[in-house]
């Protein structure tokens, strides 16, 4: 029997999906790092079918059948929060947070995000002629925003940026990720204890008052939810901002179109989300036998939904390989689909719009200070993006 293709595969170019999946659309068997064979779902309709059916395709990360996509994922099994739960347990936790993530609430944060972004661009201009946009821009924006939203002191950002990076990086070993999780949990547990004594006005304080003090959540559960929001809230969005800059610079005609009509900003961000697929793929496992695009999936089989290829499915997106800032298509699966669809998506959109819109307006001569081919790109199978982004203007 021939060797099965592997998942994940490294991207050659940071904003293009790995090329190796083309031949096995929309569903095929692949092999994970540990030799386990799982189903890769690369088609758009099939990806949605899986993500819309949490009864058949479970997210339960502590279950032994849940596939670990890389060694570090094994340690995530110890973290219990709603991204790794199925309904109805999932729904109870998610609903505790919903009121903080509505379109209205996230839009109300826009002036604050704008002033934060303006301040960072001031610093970049003052520092010139070269800046690394990852530490100087892309990372602090979501990091400060999520700290303020949660009520986590930004003074501690160096610590959790470092630790959460160790959690989401493709090459992180099992030991490293276990240690990073333990450190983050210890930090958040201490923070929540302090807040129980001296309440503040962040989302964590609200959850302490509304849930922990009334028995809706234990402190340990709140620690795991806080961990999810902190990790999910900044590494993904930081990657999306930095890679968004690269993608726009590498498509000068599209950047020019956006510059000539700034009203295109929301559709440009939506197209960046589709095109870049920052979250390359997400895992599930089958709880029952099922039919998937003519294949017989068996109970216990692992499944990986390959967001990067589902977003380039020609059946769902005409000329899928073209990056077009006026495409106006929102049915990509970059935030997932179904009950787990990203709770922070409107916050991420606001941050991307303000960060990218302001940067290209304030620095009209913005360009890479190093060849695209020489930018260090993130490892396969985690949050995708670049580690460094030296630019000049």
């Amino acid at each position, binding site marked *: 029997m021939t060797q099965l293709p592997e998942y994940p595969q490294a991207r050659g170019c940071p904003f293009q999906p790995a090329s190796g999946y083309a031949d096995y659309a929309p569903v095929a068997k692949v092999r994970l790092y540990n030799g386990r064979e799982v189903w890769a779902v690369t088609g758009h309709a099939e990806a949605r079918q899986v993500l819309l059916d949490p009864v058949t395709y479970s997210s339960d990360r502590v279950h032994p059948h849940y596939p670990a996509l890389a060694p570090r994922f094994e340690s995530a099994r110890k973290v219990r929060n709603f991204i790794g739960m199925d309904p109805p347990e999932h729904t109870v936790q998610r609903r505790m947070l*919903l009121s903080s993530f509505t379109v209205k609430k996230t839009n109300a944060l826009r002036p604050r995000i704008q002033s934060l972004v303006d301040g960072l661009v001031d610093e970049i201009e003052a520092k010139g002629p070269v800046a690394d946009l990852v530490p100087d821009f892309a990372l602090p924006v979501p990091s400060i925003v999520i700290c303020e939203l949660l009520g986590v002191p930004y003074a501690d950002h160096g610590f959790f940026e470092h630790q959460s990076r160790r959690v989401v990086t493709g090459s992180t070993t099992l030991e490293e990720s276990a240690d990073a999780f333990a450190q983050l949990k210890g930090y958040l547990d201490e923070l929540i204890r302090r807040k129980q004594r001296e309440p503040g006005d962040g989302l964590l304080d609200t959850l302490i008052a509304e849930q922990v003090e009334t028995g809706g959540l234990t402190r340990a559960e709140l620690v795991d939810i806080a961990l999810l929001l902190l990790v999910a809230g900044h590494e993904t969005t930081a990657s999306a901002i930095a890679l968004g800059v690269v993608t726009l610079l590498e498509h000068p005609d599209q950047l020019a179109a956006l510059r000539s009509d700034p009203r295109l900003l929301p559709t440009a961000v939506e197209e960046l989300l589709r095109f870049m697929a920052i979250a390359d793929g997400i895992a599930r496992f089958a709880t029952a036998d099922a039919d998937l695009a003519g294949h017989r999936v068996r109970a216990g089989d692992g499944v990986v939904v390959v967001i990067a290829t589902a977003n380039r499915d020609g059946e769902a997106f005409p000329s899928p390989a073209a990056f077009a800032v006026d495409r106006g298509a929102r049915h990509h699966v970059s935030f997932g689909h179904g009950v787990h*669809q990203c709770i922070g998506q409107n916050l991420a959109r606001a941050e991307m719009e303000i960060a990218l819109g302001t940067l290209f307006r304030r620095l009209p001569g913005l360009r890479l200070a190093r060849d695209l081919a020489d930018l260090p790109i993130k490892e396969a199978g985690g949050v995708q993006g670049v580690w460094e982004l030296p630019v000049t203007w």
Partner: protein
Amino acid sequence: MRISADQGRCLGAGQCVLSAPDHFDQSELGLVDVLDPEVPEGDEQRFRDILDLCPSQALSLEA
């Protein structure tokens, strides 16, 4: 045609509010509120597409 929404299924992703703020809002709890259930004549396909974006299949159209 009229839009009907099932708050019991809604998971507050806000796709509907982004697509048609004149027709949808989110309650204090973050769940869908239909502001205007009437689908304007000729807009049926646009609303089918909007409903298709809802990740929790909480929205439907009735004759």
